[in-house]
């Protein structure tokens, strides 16, 4: 790594380690010595099986956890806590059940004191972008899983973060909805480019979306095993021969660690 950071460097993780200490147990090391860079508007996918520390890495970038050693910077500034410059999409949707779709999407703007008519306009833009036009007044329990996560994505986007962090966002969806949501994610990202860190355990999802894939070790503590740059044009086809070739390569690596 050169001393002079690239001008388009967005996120920089330097030797990040984290150990969780549970009551009455010795510490469980979750991730160890993770260093990675994310370029501006890059779509980075962190791929790994369950329990490999990838979600913890994402929570550290979000500022919800602090690393024991190492540090993370965003635009050269160290991350010390959560903030609206990083939008987070949760695996369990985590929508506010008592707010409508509109209320959920505009929440970030509301918390930051944006006047009502202004935040309505911004929120509406993102509701339209994720394809929920007409559902503004619906409550979360009236929506399907895929629609709920669309709200989650719109809510994060509406806060205009520099970075979007997605933590296994489609993990609870059925296979068909999942594929459809991957297409939607690619479409939304093409429409409004952001720096994205996307965590998943699904290799097809990674290959479909990523500019670059970070493959994690399959056991704790999580470490980076390998990196793959996916230079294929979008929209991609799950059955394209280059994709299948990469899939075989990554699968071989994954099976080694399992």
């Amino acid at each position, binding site marked *: 790594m050169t001393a002079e950071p690239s001008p388009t460097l967005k996120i920089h993780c330097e030797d990040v380690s984290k150990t969780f200490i549970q009551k009455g147990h010795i510490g469980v090391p979750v991730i160890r010595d993770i260093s990675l860079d994310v370029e501006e508007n890059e779509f980075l996918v962190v791929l790994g099986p369950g329990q490999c520390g990838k979600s913890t890495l994402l929570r550290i970038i979000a500022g919800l956890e602090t690393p024991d050693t190492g540090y993370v910077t965003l635009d050269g500034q160290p991350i010390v806590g959560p903030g609206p410059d990083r939008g987070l999409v949760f695996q369990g949707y985590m929508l506010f059940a008592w707010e409508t779709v509109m209320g959920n999407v505009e929440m970030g703007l509301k*918390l930051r004191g944006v006047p009502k008519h202004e935040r309505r306009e911004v929120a509406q833009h993102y509701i339209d972008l994720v394809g929920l036009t007409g559902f503004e007044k619906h409550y979360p*329990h009236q929506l399907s899983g895929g629609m709920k996560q669309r709200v989650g994505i719109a809510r994060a986007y509406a806060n205009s973060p520099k970075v979007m962090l997605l933590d296994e966002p489609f993990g609870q969806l059925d296979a068909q909805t999942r594929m459809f949501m991957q297409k939607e994610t690619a479409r939304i990202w093409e429409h409004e480019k952001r720096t994205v860190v996307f965590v998943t355990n699904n290799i097809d999802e990674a290959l479909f979306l990523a500019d670059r894939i970070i493959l994690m070790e399959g056991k704790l503590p999580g470490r980076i095993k390998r990196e793959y740059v996916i230079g294929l044009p979008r929209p991609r086809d799950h059955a394209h021969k280059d994709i299948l070739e990469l899939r075989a390569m990554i699968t071989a690596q994954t099976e080694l660690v399992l």
Partner: protein
Amino acid sequence: MSSSIANETVGSASVREGRTLWEMLTNTYVLYFVSLAGFFLLWDRVAYLHVFGDSLARPHVVAQKLYMLSQVKFAGTNLAGHIWVSTQRVLIGFGLASVIAVPLGLFMSLNQYANAIVKPIFDLFKPMPPIAWVSISILWFGIGEFSKVFIIAIGTFVPCLLNAYNGIRLIEPELYDVVRVLGGSRKDEIIQVSFPASFPAIFAGLQISLSVAWTCLLAAELMNARDGMGFLIKRGMDTHDPALVLGGMVLIAAMAWLSSLLISLLERKACPWKRSIENL
């Protein structure tokens, strides 16, 4: 609603001839009617045959008794007066308790110091059945209005506080992460997540409290009272008037049901986002 269901039944029955009668007989509303009619017929039969001697009044006698009481004064006031006196006691006791207990429960779950100070005392009193307070409250406050209101307030305090407290403690912690990631403060977490998320639990607590309140009222009025629905039951017992006892019971049940309905309506107003649960 019911008419549309009936139409549907008739419509499908005409298509599948032969099951018509069975489908009509097994219609939910028909079964409701059969169930209730059967109950009242059985009651009437048992009373008519003097299975329990003369201590069970026939349904229409109970109804006549209530009608008569609504026309003439009985122990100083007519039926509406007795109902109102009891309802007032419940409203004041329940109102006082909930106004203090709900905010206290919320505060305890949000502030560990408040929790550490109040919780031990609360845990000490929690297992005490509210009726156990009847005698001591008469010793302390005499047989006036205050001792009755006191018992009701004591009884309703516990479920109100407990539900508000647990309502906040059982919130998914990741919901607070959402507020933090969106740029909110601790205050935002409380206003945007803690309060709205605890609403259903608070209303559940109010419902439980309300049913406890009517129980406490009855206990207090049976013990000593010159008016109210519990007094009617007590007077019926003392003068061996089963129609009056049963009439008082029916009235209390009706009022408890009405007040619970009122809380349900309030909840629907306050939490429009809650999935409506049928047959509440």
